[in-house]
């Protein structure tokens, strides 16, 4: 009898301890659903006293939610959101600057420049052309190898790209062309490209999906959906244009106002650690810690060298101006084009 009571008491105490020790972190993310589980398991294994609660949605929704909750933030950490979104949060003074344990190993251009940084990168995704080989053969389309090729009249109405006003990926493309070809050259390029665009979509991965399903043979998107769809059996060729790729970084930051600062710092440490990079490596070909990534099946070896020298500050400062110009040139005109 006594034994049983003692056992019960011990169990109770253990439960209480467990409940006390278990810190719960609310983590906002735009990572793909299938990435969440391995990342979470690895972190919780290293930190058994902390558990992660995900709030996952697309980049636009998560960013909007974070900003809308500014007065009483719900998130403790942001793990896996576009660097440009984290830059907005930093601008709004919503992040706690923190230097994670492995900061010196992170590439200089893959983190917030301030010291300590407001956000630290994880991996890189870049502009990619998804090219449907079956449709191309059916419609007699040559495979493009550079951005300039896409202005060839043979592609009229065959190309889809994200609308830069709806999608960060779309804006990435536009700002990269303006940086690569110069302001005048960039707009001139987009004028010609616009004549070939069949549709501007409202999500960054949609063009690649449309290409995979053959709705439109060519989609300007980024490499993650391209690789995923190809693995699922889509007849896609992944084209990385020669002039250079616009790119964006996935990053981590601690939200100001969190009451779990110590646990949040542990997560930030983990997100920048070698163990985490080994996990990111399965999904991305360029990582924030140089020298870890392995050549990616379906992507050329010089992938990282093709990334342009991206001026994020310029891109975010001029965003409103560029979008207004884009709207003026291509939004109003798209109706007569459609008819």
């Amino acid at each position, binding site marked *: 009898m006594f034994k049983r009571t003692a056992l019960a008491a011990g169990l109770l105490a253990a439960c209480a301890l467990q409940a006390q020790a278990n810190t719960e972190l609310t983590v906002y993310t735009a990572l793909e659903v299938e990435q969440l589980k391995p990342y979470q398991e690895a972190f919780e294994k290293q930190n058994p006293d902390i558990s992660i609660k995900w709030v996952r949605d697309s980049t636009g929704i998560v960013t909007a939610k974070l900003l809308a909750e500014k*007065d009483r933030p719900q998130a403790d950490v942001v793990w896996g959101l576009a660097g440009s979104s984290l830059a907005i949060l930093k601008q709004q003074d919503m992040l706690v600057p923190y230097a994670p344990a492995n900061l010196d190993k992170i590439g200089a251009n893959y983190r917030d420049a301030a010291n300590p940084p407001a956000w630290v990168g994880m991996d890189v995704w870049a502009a990619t052309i998804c090219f449907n080989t079956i449709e191309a053969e059916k419609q007699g389309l040559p495979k493009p190898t550079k951005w300039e090729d896409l202005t060839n009249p043979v592609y009229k109405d065959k190309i889809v790209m994200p609308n830069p006003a709806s999608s960060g990926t779309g804006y990435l493309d536009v700002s990269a062309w303006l940086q690569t070809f110069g302001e005048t050259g960039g707009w001139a390029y987009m004028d010609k490209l616009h004549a070939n665009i069949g549709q501007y979509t409202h999500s960054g991965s949609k063009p690649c999906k449309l290409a995979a399903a053959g709705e439109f043979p060519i989609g300007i998107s980024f490499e993650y959906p391209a690789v995923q769809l190809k693995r699922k059996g889509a007849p896609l060729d992944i084209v990385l244009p020669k002039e250079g790729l616009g790119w964006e970084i996935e990053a981590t930051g601690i939200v100001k106002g969190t009451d779990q600062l110590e646990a949040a710092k542990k997560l930030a440490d983990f997100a920048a650690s070698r163990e985490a990079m080994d996990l990111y490596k399965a999904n991305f070909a360029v990582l924030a810690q140089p020298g870890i990534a392995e050549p990616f099946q379906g992507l050329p070896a010089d992938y990282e060298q093709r990334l342009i020298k991206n001026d994020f500050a310029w891109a975010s400062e001029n965003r409103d101006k560029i979008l207004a110009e884009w709207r003026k040139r291509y939004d109003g005109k798209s109706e007569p084009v459609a008819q």
Partner: protein
Amino acid sequence: MQQVAILHKPRTLVRRWPADLADRLFVQGGQWLLLALLLLGVLLPLTAMLWRGLAGDPGQGGGLAAASELVASANFRWLLGNSLKSALAVVLIVVPLAYAFAYALQRTCVPGKGLWRGISLLPLLAPSMLPGIALIYLFGNQGVLRDFIPDNIYGFWGIVLGQVIYTFPHALMVLLSALALADARLFDAASSMGASPWRAFRSITWPGSRQGLFAAACLVFTLCVTDFGVPVVVGGDYQVLSLEAYKAVVGQQQFGRGALIGLFLLLPALLSFAVDLWLRRRQRDAMGGRAQVYHPQPSRGRDGAFLLLVLLVSACLLGVFGMAVYSSLVKFWPYDLSLSLHNYAFSELPGGWLAYRNSLLLATCCALFGGVLIFLGSYLLEKTRQSPLTQLLRLLCFIPMAVPGLVLGLGYVFFFNLPANPLHGLYGSVTLLVICTVAHFLTTAQMTASAALRQLDGEFEAAALSLKVPLLRHFFRVTLPICLPALLDIVRYLFVSAMTTVSAVIFLYSPDSLLAAIAVLNMDDAGNVGGAAAMSTLILLTSAAVSLLLAGASRGLLRRSQAWRAAPGH
């Protein structure tokens, strides 16, 4: 018309309440409670959102300067024009079609009414993404019917087609209600006076249902103007105003700009509210206490023609949804068309079945609490003396229809997550999801309840009064049983809407309360169109099963309480 005037006294004479305390408490207390709930669930969150539009910082596209710049821009006029054009086209197609469909079900002897009615409700039962996927698989560049249309589906006609499918059951619900009850004596009198069926239609059916027709037109118009789900999927380059609000919020995090556009989207609903008020003055009660329920007599030509129409509409809807279900079974559209169930393996997805269970919980709560509340509220609006308070309540009930779900959802974040708000504990809870969903779908439900209630003559209340029956008891004993079909409609409508809704709740769900329809969106976003179609199909089947169950359960109730409908005169 003459007879109607003789048979029915004007409303004002009928309404005269004694100072009975219980009644007063029920009516006044109820109305004030309703006001409090509407303020909390609709007006305050919206104000919090619109405040960002008018007073917000220019960095987020808000403020008066941004407003005047927005309105003056050619881009805005272009978007506005596009919105009006496509919404008008949808109204012109849907409302006559739905009116004829409702007429066929209520006023003719076409066989298989239950079946047609069920099929007509299909678009309500699935997330709007499902018909979107189906339309692309049917008419897209790889679509099976691609060769039947000159250009591809993306653009004006894609939006119109998608929104016709989306709004048809909404319009039908209002019109079925409006055509539900008719006084057989009027038709008898008309035929004994030698009036042609057309004449009888013009002078009896039409005046009795035109308010419903107008309400349906307004509803469809506002639904179209505020919807962005269809334009996002099949709009192509044909851009509309609601999509611009979506782009501002989701694409650029410019809440101010989104709120300003949301403000413009409110205008059509406010306009229709004014016209509705004006029409209400002219409409008289169609169903007196002494009325006999009209039962249509078979007529071969008429029934045949209507059957053809009903068949055509049903075939189109079945085609679209059949295609959608097919798309959930295909392995990899369009290159591997072998069939399999692997898209239905939700347990392999993180949170797979949890989302589905959450949706069931949310839908059940919305249907039960929302249904009772809305019906009771409508009763308090329709069957009591009209006062500034009832007008205000009516206006507040109209607003949610005009608010894009996205704007409402953000308003909830701004309002309920305010540190100063004593209710901020609700934030992230299922309760708030229920409140938000009921508020979002309030208008159609309330319109259905009101349309049904308005057809009951005020004489019923007068009789209750003279018999000294407390109003509350009268409500439960007389009004509720008579209107049971309408109430069940509302319960079903709220259930299926809660199963399928995305736009408002996407900002409000927490990890534990992920919803099935949001999972659909996420899967589509991740390129898993088959999985999205599969989850949508599951939602569709669930909603259909619950609708059937409700219909079955209510049948017994109806047989008892609705005997008067079939009873031969007195």
